[in-house]
């Protein structure tokens, strides 16, 4: 068992589950505990377990996914730059308003990555310093990477004025 799991088990008993795929080690937090546990867990990983680098924040929508329990998931990939060890923390969230704590106080690099997750999936991050859309236009109202959003959108892409040659 990796050393960081001893630390996590001592500090957050029964709050998370673990899994592995090939060499990917994962720690999962379900939608009920994630808002409360995620931030202290990331802080513990950073300050006590040596995972000093956040290399990825991504989102997943598990709608219609076989055997999925919670709908949204935010994946934090952390790296221990001394040992090269990697760990993925998966925090789940659910409708109607998926909210998770922001990791920006721990890693400044989470800022834009969390904005992207918010833009694409509509998952809000509390205490984020500047939670705006980053890829889509400001006036856009949908969250395009949700699985119930049509591939071709709701017609937003044609919602512009057209210019005729005489008037331009």
């Amino acid at each position: 068992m990796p050393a960081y799991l001893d630390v996590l088990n001592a500090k957050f008993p029964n709050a998370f589950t673990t899994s592995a795929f090939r060499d990917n080690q994962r720690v999962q937090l379900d939608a009920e505990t994630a808002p409360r546990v995620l931030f202290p867990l990331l802080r513990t990983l950073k300050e006590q377990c040596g995972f000093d680098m956040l290399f990825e924040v991504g989102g997943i929508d598990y709608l219609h996914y076989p055997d999925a329990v919670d709908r949204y998931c935010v994946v934090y990939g952390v790296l221990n730059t001394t040992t090269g060890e990697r760990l993925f923390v998966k925090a789940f969230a659910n409708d109607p308003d998926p909210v998770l704590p922001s990791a920006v106080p721990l890693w400044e690099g989470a800022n834009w990555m969390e904005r992207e997750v918010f833009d694409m999936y509509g998952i809000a991050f509390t205490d984020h310093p500047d939670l705006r859309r980053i890829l889509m236009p400001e006036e856009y109202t949908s969250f395009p990477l949700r699985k119930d959003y049509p591939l071709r959108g709701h017609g937003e892409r044609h919602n512009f004025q057209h210019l005729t040659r005489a008037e331009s």
Partner: protein
Amino acid sequence: MALKLDDNIFIAQLDGLASWVRKNSLWPMPFATACCGIELMATASSRYDIARFGSEAMRFSPRQCDVMIVAGRVVMKMVPVMQRIWLQMSEPKWCISMGACASSGGVFDTYSVVQGIDRFLPVDVYVPGCPPRPEQLIRAVLDLQEKVQRTGTINAREFRDRDHYEGPTPLATELPVEELVVAPGNYRTGTRLRLN
């Protein structure tokens, strides 16, 4: 009574003269957003040498340009920018839609990519290809020169009639949600799940 002119005096219509002057110095505004832009740059290089047709002076200020070459896919967020640049260009001006994406959206039939810039701008010449070869772009410039010579007028009267929408008919329906093919499917058999 026959009038004898000196050999160094020519008579032409003013419209034709203006068009002749304009068509041989079409300065492009390179609105290059994707891989077509690389071909656009190659067209200006010495191997293809668009300077042979008077279009080598790429200006990055729309005020100095005659023809906007939209090269590459245009996303929703880019449409207002493109329209603004088009409006900033001074008359007379023309537009070349270069490549499959600018002309029709190409393979990018997604929520964010507009399906052809001619839905929002008046386009004069379309260039097919993904991306088009430099020869095709040169052909488009020659076609535009022919169009300028044929229809051009000194005070741009030919644009006054183009007061209607020239693009394709609007897309009848966007794909409804229940038609949606969604990943993830079963990656072992390569099939995808279909909702409902």
